[in-house]
């Protein structure tokens, strides 16, 4: 009889041993396990993304020659416009450098732009992250800002040998110091409103009471540059509504994020350079 009782309890005894073993396992061993298991699996999403790119390549090969000529002509026009803007940006940067030197101001942060392909998107109600195909091999640091044509993508959370994990701006784990486009007072932004079958939203808090925004007159929310991670002026999203918070001292509201954020295939990591 006691033997039969032990047989019944055996699974739970083994479970207790496993859980206790996991609890007392040193943090260093857990870290090694985490890194090992990550690197072991890293080639799987990378290989899948290469296959997807190959698929896109063959799909694009199906275009007619006329369509390609037209696309090339359109691109030439866009390129000419961007070339002019790049020249203007160079002139402005030279002016900023000259003024910094003249006024003895500390130099503004400089970044190296590292473009990376997205290997996998993992957007659940619990977390929102991207796996990109560049990591320590391209000198990407933890905490580096990640951007795209529409503004902020997120921040690098983990860096591995050939890949890096980016916390998306829509993830509840990401908080930023932000400002409104025409207002220098800092506010707090946090991702996290991710309704089903609809674009993601964020939340803005600690907004001064004299700031107004609505769905008909939205306000652009940009990075403040405070904290030293993100350069200032990058678009986070559009604030489409503000309500007084419970304490009545500030307002809080909803930030509509760009729907393109969930379809990204390529992003740019801003790698700080020239820092002591």
């Amino acid at each position, binding site marked *: 009889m006691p033997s039969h009782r032990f047989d*019944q309890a055996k699974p739970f005894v083994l479970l207790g041993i496993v859980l206790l073993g996991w609890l007392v396992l040193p943090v260093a061993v857990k870290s090694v396990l985490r890194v090992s*298991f990550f690197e072991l699996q890293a080639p799987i999403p990378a290989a899948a993304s290469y296959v997807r790119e190959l698929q896109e390549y063959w799909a694009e090969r199906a275009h007619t020659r006329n369509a390609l000529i037209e696309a090339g002509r359109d691109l030439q026009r866009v390129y000419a416009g961007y070339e002019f803007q790049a020249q203007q940006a160079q002139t402005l940067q030279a002016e900023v450098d000259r003024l910094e030197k003249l006024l003895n101001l500390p130099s503004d942060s400089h970044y190296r732009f590292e473009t990376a392909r997205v290997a996998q998107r993992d957007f659940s*109600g619990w977390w929102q992250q991207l796996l990109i195909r560049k990591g320590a091999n391209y000198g990407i640091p933890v905490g580096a800002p990640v951007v795209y044509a529409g503004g902020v993508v997120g921040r690098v959370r983990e860096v591995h040998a050939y890949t890096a*994990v980016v916390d998306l701006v829509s993830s*509840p784990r990401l908080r930023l110091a932000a400002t409104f486009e025409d207002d220098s007072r800092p506010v707090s932004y946090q991702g*996290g*409103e991710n309704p089903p079958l609809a674009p*993601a*939203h964020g939340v803005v808090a600690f907004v001064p009471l004299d700031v107004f925004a609505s769905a008909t007159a939205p306000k652009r929310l940009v990075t403040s540059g405070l904290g030293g991670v993100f350069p200032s002026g990058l678009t986070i999203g559009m604030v489409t509504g503000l309500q007084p918070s419970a304490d009545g001292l500030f307002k809080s509201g909803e930030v509509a994020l760009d729907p393109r954020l969930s379809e990204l295939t390529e992003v740019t990591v801003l790698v700080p350079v020239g820092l002591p």
Partner: protein
Amino acid sequence: MFRRCLIPFATMLGGWWLVAELNDFLAPHAAYLFVGGLLVTFAALHLRLVHGLAATVLTGLAIDAVQPGPFFGVHLVLFAVVHVLIFHLRTRFPREETSVGVVTALFANLALFLGLSVLALGGEPAPAVAWLRLLADLVWSQLFVAAVAPWFFALQQRALELGRVNLVAEHRRSL
């Protein structure tokens, strides 16, 4: 020992990565599939405790390494608990039946999804919207699990047979 543990582990990991690819395609539509319960069920219903639990723990570790849970090891702990509960109850129903496996996978998936949601939603700024999203994801996940479970169980069974693991003998030994 190694074959009985590594073959289920390989199939679970393969299944999980297939779903991860599917989630990549679903990302622009704000939908997500979770199949933790599907991964755990076959090993818990058909393998011996040590072999099945080892495969489940390894799978939990592999998922923990790539997903940002509330703490490292959250999948490992939840998967192990659900595995042991299914193992404990498996003699009470005809576990050889595929339909029983599907129902078990659905209940296991529900338990794991709710467990993970409760643990992961600590710092959420808008819990009501978050739960609405989770509810929708749970519905898609349960429908998906119900649809693919028979195929996934057959895949695991065939993989074990190819690895010369006799499931009938395993059943007899575990009685």
